[in-house]
């Protein structure tokens, strides 16, 4: 059921009084649930709920030619479908800019952290490699989609098993799961929202309607930064950026602790 949106100005007024619309602390997540293995047909899958937000990630692997500049490495592709029942604002049709951005930001966290050993995804050097499709299905959008999607993606990857490879047909054999994906890191993304001069994590849909700007910071197992994306029509100062990085590192560690181990 749709909840009535408190007006943007009400959210902003509360924030000025240092209160969040749902009573949380500014550095506090809503309840997070991670379920893996929810889709048997997928090589790996995860359903992540952050409050009322729900995203499913499914991993499919297939045999492909490598990209010309990395002839001995497999590759990943991230796609995002925002199912139109996830938000009254969504419409059927080609991916919106928001959907494209989401997929690309999740992709960068996984790719730039080096979390997948793509060299181990090579089947025949220069000829055939595993292509890993990460499909994100946004099923319920109550804010903070990027963090939920990134979390679903890495949880699905960490529990994924490749299909078998049949050297005779040079094709994948599905339904008989083989080795685990060669994972090297567990990047997570934390998005920090800004309303007025206040920073907060895990914004819900009401808060996002009132947001000045947001910044998504992906961090890796070492606590280093591996990707950043600023969004929204506002700005960040240097001090705000530093505070955001600190939040991302600390809260990223919290998220990582919920993930399956490497």
């Amino acid at each position: 059921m749709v909840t009535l949106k408190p007006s943007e100005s009400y959210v902003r007024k509360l924030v000025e009084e240092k209160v969040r619309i749902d009573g949380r602390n500014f550095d506090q997540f809503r309840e997070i649930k991670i379920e893996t293995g929810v889709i048997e047909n997928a090589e790996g899958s995860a359903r992540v709920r952050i409050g009322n937000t729900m995203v499913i990630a499914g991993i499919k692997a297939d045999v492909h030619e490598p990209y010309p500049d990395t002839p001995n490495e497999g590759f990943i592709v991230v796609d995002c479908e925002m199912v139109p029942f996830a938000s009254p604002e969504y419409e059927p049709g080609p991916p919106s800019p928001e959907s494209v951005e989401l997929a690309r930001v999740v992709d960068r966290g996984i790719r730039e952290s080096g979390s997948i050993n793509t060299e181990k995804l090579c089947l025949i050097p220069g000829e055939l490699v595993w292509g890993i499709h990460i499909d994100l299905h946004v099923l319920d959008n109550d804010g903070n989609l990027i963090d939920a999607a990134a979390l679903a993606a890495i949880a699905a990857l960490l529990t994924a098993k490749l299909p078998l490879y049949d050297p005779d047909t040079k094709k994948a054999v599905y339904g008989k799961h083989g080795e685990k994906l060669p994972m090297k890191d567990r990047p997570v993304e934390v998005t920090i929202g800004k309303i007025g001069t206040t920073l907060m994590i895990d914004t819900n849909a009401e808060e996002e309607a009132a947001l000045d700007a947001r910044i998504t910071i992906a961090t890796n197992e070492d606590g280093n930064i591996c990707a950043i994306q600023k969004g929204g029509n506002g700005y960040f100062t240097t001090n705000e950026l530093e505070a955001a990085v600190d939040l991302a590192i600390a809260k990223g560690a919290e998220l990582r602790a919920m993930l399956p181990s490497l």
Partner: protein
Amino acid sequence: MSKKVGAPEALIVDGKRLDGRSPNEFRPINIEIGTLKRANGSAEFRFGNTYALAGVMGPRPFHPKALQDPQRSIVRVNYAMAPFSTKERSKPGKSRRSTEISKVINEALANVIFAEDYPRTGIDLFLVILQADASTRCAALNAASLALADAGVPIRDLVVSCSVGKVDGTLILDVAGLEDNFGDVDMAVATIANQDKIVLLQMDGIITKEEFMTLIDMAKKGCGQIYDMMKAKLYEKYVATPAEEGA
């Protein structure tokens, strides 16, 4: 025809199907109502590994305005397979198959929706197959009926659906993946509640008139069983819960 790649030796062994079921037995059926928070109504329906999720948006003002119907709500159905729902990844986006299935599901539901109660609006049904193991259109249609009920859209009664078929010469209820791929006949049927009103019917494969009439009978009985389960679940959710009493 030569045996297809991947076909099992037999689909019926000692009177039992590959998953151990008898011919006239459903796979485990799982129903959840109201699983989505932002949709106006939602439901999940599973036949074994076939997993469908339905969400209703609306009734809401139809856009663009110039295409509004002053007499009734415009119902649109969008059936889609998640890319990870199948063994080989399904390409996202509309296919001819999904266009056809959306059409026949829409026509089936048209029998029960009081669209004239909501002129100038649109009711959008989005049906997502999260996992596919045959009978996906039946699962999607059942989820759709429940989601409409959950959304409070006025309907005459629930449309309910199941599949029947023929494998290794045996007539069966609730066709599963390998039975669909390597069997002789696959037929999807939907009825209004447990009435003798067939609102969806699609069949592939060669069959005699007599076998067809038998399958129709099996399907109607199957739909009746599903109707009972769906009603029970709605009752449990909307009538039997203390939360509602307090409302």
